[in-house]
């Protein structure tokens, strides 16, 4: 067999790949589990952070709520100090 023929036959053989019969199904299962997990874990803290981080309006709402709570606490403390 000539070198050229061997070289091309080798390249041809390298490009042939046997893929496990269940490869696609395994990947799709993994994806479905991932999507299912996303829906189920909506109320887990890390998932909530992920969701809030993805939407600027939600981020603004969380910051505003935090600021309001902080101001409320300050007002409450001032009220206690001055009027009790």
């Amino acid at each position, binding site marked *: 067999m000539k*070198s050229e023929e061997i070289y091309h036959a080798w390249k041809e053989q390298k*490009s042939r*790949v046997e893929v496990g019969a269940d*490869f696609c199904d395994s990947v*799709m299962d*993994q*994806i479905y589990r*991932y999507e299912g997990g996303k829906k189920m874990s909506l109320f887990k803290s890390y998932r909530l952070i992920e969701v809030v981080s993805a939407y600027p309006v939600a981020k603004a709402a969380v910051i505003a709520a935090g600021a309001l709570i902080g101001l409320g606490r300050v007002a409450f403390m001032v009220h206690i100090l001055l009027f009790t």
Partner: protein
Amino acid sequence: MALETEVIRRILEGDIESFRFLLERYEKPVISMIRSITDDRESCEDIAQDVFFTVYKKLASFDPARSDFSTWLFTIARNKSLNALKKKRVFSASELPERTDQTNPSDCLTQKELFERLDGELQVLPSRQRRAFVMAEIEKLSYEQIAQIEGARLGTIKSRINRAKKKLRSALAELDGEAV
């Protein structure tokens, strides 16, 4: 291309099952590329699974204006393969495959043996040359695509491929001399 763009749009709209089309189209070239880079038949499907899962998760960030889907996919496959290699420290000299120049000239080499020797020669090529060669000659990607995947200039890629071809052909010429 247009079909792929349409499929990607459907996936992003929530039709998860459409991802199977991309999987079936690219499973073989991706696995072949991973196998050639890592030289690991055992774990190449695991790495490929990770590649496709990552592709699915990052699909929203794919920009068709910047590259073809296949270029983007092969870039992820390349990076995952290199990470897998780093983890296994395959690059350490002690674990590199043995060179094939320890042959007895009187050996009669069968085609299978010649292929194995060529596989060995491919694995001892510098990794950049090997990757460029595999993408061009085995996966039949265009030089432009390879340049994008490797983040290198077109001329550099051509030169890497030419050097790899030259080394392999010269190794083959030596081996062929031994074959009867």
